């Protein structure tokens, strides 16, 4: 344990000489991912996901009648995403008002899911996606996107494909996947990638820090590799759930 807390040049050593990260993972290793769908009875679709210590709850309502008539579109459904972080989700309890960061995350959610959901099948309707971070330990955007995908499928909404998201960054030019909070809050860059695993198309690519262009490709590749692995897990969750429900219906 003492190795982990070695202070090197007044900052935490994020990658040990043996190539292990602060939580004992290797550079290309994802955190443990568990997920469950159909957790809320009132919502049309819902999902709960845990990626390491990051926990996220997603609820999908709709397609339903548009709340504000002026937003109504005559050829397709509108998608409304609301992202929220619980006050108890971080180490310090904070009451958060709706700030720019939350709004920008909601907008990212909309642009991620709009091309994937077949909205043209539901004109004059609205689809609401509510995302709640219950515990924050890095990668909340990826957890939200993965949870929202599961919840949308649970709601029976037609989609072209899954949307799987994963983060990657680099420490001392070594690309690492699925950053936790400690790695995220160091000055290392963090890249969030969302892909459609069937075609490999990139749906979202977001980075707020600087990354050298020479490292970019390896980091992006590692992130999409992580997405592929996450897809396998999410697909298994959906299959198991669908089979379970079918069995119950047959009884």
């Amino acid at each position, binding site marked *: 344990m003492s190795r982990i807390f070695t202070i090197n040049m007044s900052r935490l050593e994020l990658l040990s000489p043996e190539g292990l990260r602060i939580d004992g993972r290797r550079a290309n290793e994802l955190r443990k991912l568990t997920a469950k769908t159909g957790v809320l009875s009132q919502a049309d*679709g819902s999902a709960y996901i845990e990626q390491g210590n990051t926990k996220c709850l997603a609820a999908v309502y709709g397609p339903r*009648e548009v709340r504000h008539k002026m937003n109504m579109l005559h050829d397709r459904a509108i998608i409304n995403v609301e992202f929220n972080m619980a006050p108890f989700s971080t180490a310090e309890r904070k009451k958060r008002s709706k700030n720019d960061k939350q709004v920008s995350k909601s907008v990212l959610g909309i642009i991620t899911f709009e091309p994937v959901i077949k909205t043209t099948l539901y004109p*004059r309707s609205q689809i609401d996606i509510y995302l709640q971070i219950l515990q924050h330990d890095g990668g909340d955007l990826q957890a939200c996107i993965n949870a929202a995908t599961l919840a949308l499928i649970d709601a*029976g*909404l*037609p989609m072209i494909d899954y949307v799987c998201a994963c983060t990657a960054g680099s420490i001392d030019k070594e690309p690492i996947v699925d950053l936790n909070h400690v790695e995220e809050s160091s000055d290392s860059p963090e890249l969030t990638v969302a892909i459609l695993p069937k075609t490999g198309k990139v749906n979202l690519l977001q980075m707020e820090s600087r990354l050298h262009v020479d490292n970019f490709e390896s980091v992006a590749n590692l992130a999409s590799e992580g997405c592929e692995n996450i897809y396998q897990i999410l697909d298994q969750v959906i*299959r198991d759930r*669908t089979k379970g429900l079918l069995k119950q*219906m047959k*009884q």
Partner: protein
Amino acid sequence: MQVQFLSPVPPPPPEPQEEDGDVSMVDGESVGINPVTPGQAIATDTQGHGTYLEGSTVHSSVAGMIDRVNKLISVRPLKTRYNAEIGDIVVGRITEVAQSRWKVDVNGRQDAVLMLSSVNLPGGVQRRKSESDQLQMRTFFSEGDLLVGEVQSFYADGATALQTRTLKYCKLRNGTFTCVPPALVQRCKSHFHTLPCGVDVILGLNGYIWVSKTTEKLPKGVEGRAAEEVEAEMAYSNKNEPITDHERETIARVSNCIAALARRFMYINDSIIVYAYEASLGFAVSDLLQLQVIRAITQEASAKAAMS
């Protein structure tokens, strides 16, 4: 009132699949109990609901079971909003009173429309709707009222039109409302049932269910008026009849039984409700939403249903 939060139940662990027993793979297409998930390539046939075409292959767009009619292939999701079909009996709630029409929430992707011209008004069945009728629409149905109606037609944008032109379609009273996933209510000959325990159940195909006290047929011609006329007036009554404590308890029991069946994702029809009701008699009504009790009564009900 005691409020209880139930922790989510994980689905039962999937049983190991029998080798080539019920799953056969034909050119990447899965039949049997194997569900498909969004983006999965299914076949090269004609595409139906729940699928999309990419190149010449049909891909699934939802998670569910494959439905195949000759060359037409479609995927049915297990949980989805209500898709109306003409002639369906639905239970709905008025959300808005608009210009000579009501908007009704029927658990669909848009609110359904009930035109003033497609309801029966008191005072003669075949009566022209005058302007004064338009002005007093709220006396017939106002916001929040529940009603049972029939899907009449569709508009060009996919909105549903309802009608309540028969005496069996009316405003709902004397009972309680339950909502279940629409996929669990199957189409059958009748959706109005009177259970032997003395309650009426209306199984709306949209997953909205109304459980109420049994109403007796009105005596013919009260005070010299025709029975039909009295009934038409009663159809818009807002007042509950007197309901005894025993009747209230039975209604609550039946509605909790329906909630229990829905929670276990079992098909809901009149006979399974009766079996669940009989199984529930050993428990107090307030205990019926506990997880062990739900499991006990649904298992007993499905065993009885399998025997008959």
